């Protein structure tokens, strides 16, 4: 069955000041209604300050990273979108006409990019409104309905969030700063819009639910009407919204109190020169430039700082070896320590030094991982860490007697191996490793063990 899915994604832009006033934006860190002024609470007579240039700049950068054409040297009106809700202090939200469009990401076309402002936060149970969030800049990204399954949609959102994070100009997704309106239609049915989706996981679940719901309706010969539904995160279902809300006419007018934006072409080009390489393009480049696998490249570009580190190290040591380490051991260490790549303190040279020793077999990969863990905790030259941990590679003439001793003391395992129990060799390898104080390469031990036992 033919499925069409499209998104309107809203993401907060990480500016220090709000969009049309000078209030701070750390709305989650302060008591309710403290980051407020007459402007962001819409007091009678309050007029907006000129739009926050940093927010405009961030939206342009995001547009460029998504391959959009920025509409330079023309008037882009800031419009008033009227609707009546307690979180909206003036009864309208300010939203720009598209400032860019015609981009794409993972084959999904980006229709247009807008600048908006966040409303306050309404608590229907207590009947309270907190205006701390009111006026925080948002970028709105509208896609064409190009996704054909909930899985594809999820992949797209993940890629999109990665692009947004690459700019370094949005609030991290963890803060629940991403919100999406999800559009989905099945062949033969009307388009359904699902509001109130606050995460990638939520979008995926809402879509899965809608596919099933709409498919069942169509199967039974019922029609799927065009409507707006709300996603209930706690129950993982969507429910119809009140008819009034769906038939709303926003009565857009250009805001008479704000000059339209005019984006200077030269200024936009400067942003383009300065901006980071978008992750999806960087992934392709890493694959062709360093001849690494797509799986490794995907991990490497997952964070901008991780990719920067990779490229710095890959210039010094074999890029393929570095890629394997990034995908496996480095990722493991970072996950274990709950570190983001941005938090890494050691230098590319230190990591390159470590990997060079592994390449030259001065260290086993396992020893290397121990050093890496230490490096992440207390950055230092790898030689110093090795000395501190007492990690030096064992010599062959030292290793052979230990192997002989292990065989001597574990005759049962030796017999087992000889009678065809392959896994017994792992047991023996472990014993030797223990006796060497983990200084030997397990692959080397296994090779020597088989040589000895097999000789008899």
């Amino acid at each position: 069955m033919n499925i069409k899915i499209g998104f309107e994604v809203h993401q907060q832009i990480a500016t220090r000041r709000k969009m049309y006033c000078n209030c701070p934006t750390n709305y989650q860190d302060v008591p309710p209604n403290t980051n407020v002024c007459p402007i962001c609470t819409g007091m009678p007579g309050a007029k907006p300050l000129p739009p926050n240039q940093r927010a405009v700049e961030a939206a342009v950068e995001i547009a460029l990273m998504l391959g959009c054409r920025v509409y330079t040297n023309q008037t882009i009106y800031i419009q008033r979108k009227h609707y009546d809700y307690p979180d909206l202090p003036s009864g309208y939200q300010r939203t720009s006409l598209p400032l860019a469009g015609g981009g794409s990401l993972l084959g999904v076309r980006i229709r247009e990019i807008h600048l908006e402002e966040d409303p306050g936060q309404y608590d229907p149970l207590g009947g309270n409104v907190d205006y701390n969030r009111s006026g925080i800049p948002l970028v709105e990204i509208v896609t064409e309905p190009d996704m054909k399954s909930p899985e594809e949609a999820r992949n797209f959102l993940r890629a999109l969030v990665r692009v947004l994070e690459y700019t370094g100009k949005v609030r991290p997704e963890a803060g629940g700063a991403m919100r999406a309106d999800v559009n989905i239609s099945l062949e033969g049915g009307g388009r359904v819009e699902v509001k109130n989706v606050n995460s990638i996981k939520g979008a995926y679940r809402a879509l899965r639910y809608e596919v099933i719901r709409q498919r069942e309706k169509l199967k039974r010969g019922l029609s799927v009407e065009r409507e707006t539904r709300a996603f209930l995160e706690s129950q993982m279902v969507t429910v119809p919204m009140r008819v009034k809300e769906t038939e709303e006419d926003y009565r857009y007018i250009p805001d008479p109190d704000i000059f339209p934006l005019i984006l200077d072409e030269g200024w936009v080009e400067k942003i383009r020169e300065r901006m980071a390489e978008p992750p999806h393009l960087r992934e392709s480049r890493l694959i062709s430039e360093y001849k690494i696998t797509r799986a490794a490249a995907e991990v490497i570009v997952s964070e901008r700082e991780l990719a920067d580190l990779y490229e710095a190290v890959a210039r010094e040591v074999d890029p393929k070896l570095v890629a394997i380490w990034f995908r496996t051991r480095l990722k493991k260490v970072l996950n274990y320590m709950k570190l983001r790549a941005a938090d890494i303190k050691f230098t590319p040279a230190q990591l390159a030094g470590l990997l060079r020793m592994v390449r030259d077999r001065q260290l086993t990969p396992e020893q290397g991982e121990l050093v890496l863990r230490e490096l992440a905790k207390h950055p230092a030259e790898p030689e110093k860490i090795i000395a501190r941990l007492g990690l030096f590679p064992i010599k062959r003439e030292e290793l052979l007697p230990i192997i002989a001793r292990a065989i001597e003391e574990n005759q049962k395992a030796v017999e087992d191996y000889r009678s065809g129990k392959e896994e017994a060799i792992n047991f023996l390898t472990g014993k030797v490793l223990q006796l060497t104080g983990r200084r030997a390469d397990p692959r080397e031990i296994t090779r020597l063990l088989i040589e000895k036992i097999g000789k008899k």
Partner: protein
Amino acid sequence: MAEGTLAKLARIRGGELSAAENVASALERIQELDRRINSFIELNPNALAEAEAVDRKIKRGERVGKLAGLTIGVKSNINVAGLRATCASRTLQNYVSPYDAEVIKRIRAEDGIIIGMNNMDEFACGSSGETSAFGPTDNPAAPGHIPGGSSSGGAAAIAARLCDLCLGTDTGGSIRNPASHCGIVGLKPTYGLVPRQGLIDLGMSLDQIGPLSADVAGTALLLETIAGRSDNECIMLNVDRVNYSELLREKSLKGMRIGISEKFSELTDPAIMKVIDGQIEKLRDLGAEIVEVDLPNLERGLSAYYLIVSVEFFSGTRKFDGRKYGRRIEDVCGEEVLRRILRGRYISQKEYRGKFYQRALQVRTLVRRELLAAFERVDVIVGPTVPKLPHRLGTKITPMEMYAYDYLTVPANLAGICAGVVNAGRVNGIPVGLQVQGRVLGEPEVLRVMQALEAAG
């Protein structure tokens, strides 16, 4: 003739009249006369204390501002911290401003004393002063007649000499119309010259705050206090402050080209026109060159104006949803406010996009181009302010009859140019004002012409 603004200011600065005495006598006069006129909604309880502070400065020989000790009434749609900005509406009847509008900050910085909040047409929607939720205002210059509007209270207060200066607002004539009917001076500045931060919305693309006063010098003084660039809002002209009082020292009109138009007499009561024509002859005698200009689409401005105002007013009043400021505006407002909200709501519908609002903006462009073209040939354009005489208070008139008061004033708002009013004489004992329209930032020429006429008597 009563004492001029500058003479009084000199007496205060010279210690001859204390600011406190000036405030006290204003309060006394208000106490005595305003029960009948109804030009103030609320008085500033700190006015005397503020005046005493100015007096102390004068005594100590400190520098005092250019409004030192003068009493200033403020239209009730401008925020003054601690006073109610009611917009003469029940919606905002208990709204106490938490902040000063930018113009109020500038007045305070020049030691002007805010004496109180003036009555007005509800949300500045009206041309008669009768739509206030706090009752109509009488016209002290023609008792029993409307004072005009919507800055009705300010104009009446000046006419009755209840205070020295007033701040009005003008979206389609709301300063000039009552100035004309009350026989005083008023000026609508160029759009974007005076900051609107703190002015409650009527038609945001047209609204301007401006002065009302008994003489041209007072208007110049208040204008130079409030005008000039502000970083605290978007739609401002990036212009330095101008010392208008200084420019008024130039008394001659020699070499000035003054435009008149046939259009004005077509639209105006002949009795009013006769008074206006008399003034034009005076201008000729004073050395100005009178030039006929062509304004073929002038009257088309009125309907475009009411469409634009209604849409912007609808948008601006959405915040009065009953959640924050008393009751929802539609539930408690008067007829004219409701009419404009409903009209704005109707014509801003998606299905009418391009049909009304956009068309109105096109007409606005047409009117603006026509006026700007005329200003390539002349320095100012003079004519009547209001095409007919004010009706008697309480007379029932239709909305169209009410809107017809605005034919001659809305073009200046649509074009964003400046326009002042000075008394031209009387018809049947009722004052009639001459309107002087100037180009964008043409305030110096406008004030010069107004002063020349004032001086000629």
